[in-house]
């Protein structure tokens, strides 16, 4: 594709590009930071980035929230409600994983006295 087309695509799909960039930032944190708490902040960033991607894929320019109430006529445009329903579940799952990971960290710290992955490797 030509450069101008590339810029056009980058512009219209800016949300997707940001989501993927956040995914990579999260992955980088997870891989390269030695601290376990930091790793999980990275994982949370990864999770929210995918949520951003899914919700963006259901967006419609100028669409309203999918709630039928006052001020809704037959020609009102609504955004896609399915991604929102999915991500509601996703947020809960993300919180659950984080809660488990953090409680494991508390136990790990009681047992080993450090949360640094490099030092934990040496302990073993």
């Amino acid at each position, binding site marked *: 594709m030509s450069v101008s087309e590339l810029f056009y695509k980058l512009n219209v799909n800016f949300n997707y590009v940001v989501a993927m960039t956040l*995914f990579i930032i999260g*992955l980088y944190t*997870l891989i390269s930071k030695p601290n*376990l708490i930091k*790793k999980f902040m990275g*994982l949370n960033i*990864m*999770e929210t980035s*995918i949520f951003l*991607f*899914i919700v963006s*894929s259901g967006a419609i320019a100028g669409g309203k929230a999918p709630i039928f109430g006052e001020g809704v006529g037959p020609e009102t445009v609504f955004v896609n409600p*399915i*991604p929102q329903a*999915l991500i509601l*579940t*996703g947020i809960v*799952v993300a919180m*659950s*994983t984080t809660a*488990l*990971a953090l409680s*494991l*960290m508390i*136990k*790990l710290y009681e*047992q*080993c006295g450090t949360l640094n992955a490099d030092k*934990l490797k040496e302990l*073993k």
Partner: protein
Amino acid sequence: MAEFAHHCPVLMVITFLAGAVLTPIVSKSKKKFSFWWAFFVSLLALLFSSCAVWSLYTKGPISYWLGGWEPPYGIEIYFDYISSITFLMTVLGALIILYSKKYIEHDIKEEKLPVYYTLVLLLLCGMVGFSITGDMFNLYVFLEILSLSGYALIAITEEKLTAMASFKYLVMGAVSSMCVLAGVALLYNVTGTLNMSDMALRLQQFEPIATSYMALCLFVVGFCVKAAMFPVHVWLPDAHALAPSPVSALLSGLVIKVGIVGLLRVIYGIYRLGGAIDFTTVTNFMGWLAAITVLVGAFFAFFQDDIKMIFAYSSISNIGYIIMGISLISFTQPERGYLGMVGGLIHIFNHAIIKSTLFLCAGAIIYKTGFRKLSDLRGIGKKMPITCGALTIAALSIAGIPPTAGFICKWFIVLGAIEFGRGIWAAALLIGAIFVFAYYIKIVNAIFFREPAEPILEVDEAPLSMLIPIVILAISCLVFGVFAYLPLAVIKPAAATILGLPPTYIPPGG
């Protein structure tokens, strides 16, 4: 009756779920009651799953519309041949819960007993739900249920390294779940639907091939981490070796198979059925990695002294066999992959039984002696003849000695690989098999033909509640080897339908 069988798949999930949720309530005053409750729940689920499998083989797949909404609008439960693995899950689940009674009372504090049984039931609930659902996002939700309960079950004891092992598993597992979710997101964006069969239909209509291909890669990475394939297997040995033995049996026997089920669902249920994307590059890559996995697992197992560590590394090697079997696929000629697929599927079944037997036997020995090093366990066979006899049968099976169950699957995979023109994979498999044979001979030699070491002279046989599951599983190792046509009769139509052939397909030359 037909009406009842229709409800059975969902009732299986619900039974485990409601059983798990009610466990803390029913056992509030009497903690030990939680065992009887969990055992009862698992038997009930076993009833439902046998009913569902019976209906599958007599009347064909069950499509169940949750809430009565037709598929692309609501969630569909699709109980097909891949889902018949739920029968294996419920049987092994019931046996392992029975086994846990004595083992877990000895291993963890009494106040944590209900928590343990709740988590086991939730793990089974997640696995069963994962195998029967026909909706991609639902698949992800059940994947999370089973992964989370798996992480916690490893860390349930107070031993020192368990938290670290569990954490390693958690980090890799969470990343793999992310990959699966990202795959679902990309596919949803391309097709606009979440139902698997609808996705397959719509995948051919839409243009961005790159996106669908990326989604496939993300799925493969995600499920391969769950299945512990070579470059991403590092979490498995610690996690499976340090968990309590019944949990190791569950994790090694069933949980890693979930990754395989996911691969089958995605590659064959969506991409092959869709037919728009040539995925053989990915499956070839998977096959090569699987060949390396076989060798790596077998090689590391050879140098371990910890008995559970040996079994854990052997699990990695066996996952290599299974993935090798299922990745022998040609895009244009599906029948060429038939033998490999039969071998891979039957090895899912056999490895679950064999590896559970091995871990349960190891657990019984650890329960009685407190030792887990092979060098400390010399001569144990004379003191615990039944347990060690079962261990020997299972060890021979996994080494692939002919009259046992392990032989038939390796035979099929080797035949499939040679017929497919992948002689190197077959060679890797055979070299792996020699290693496996060597280290299991090492175990059998140590436990039977050495003089007993001093500390284990006082040991006697394991309690009955542990012996019953061990003996049942060991006998089935023999039975499914001698009467190999029993599992084959079940597996063959499954392999044929996965490849898109008619269920009664017979390969040329029998």
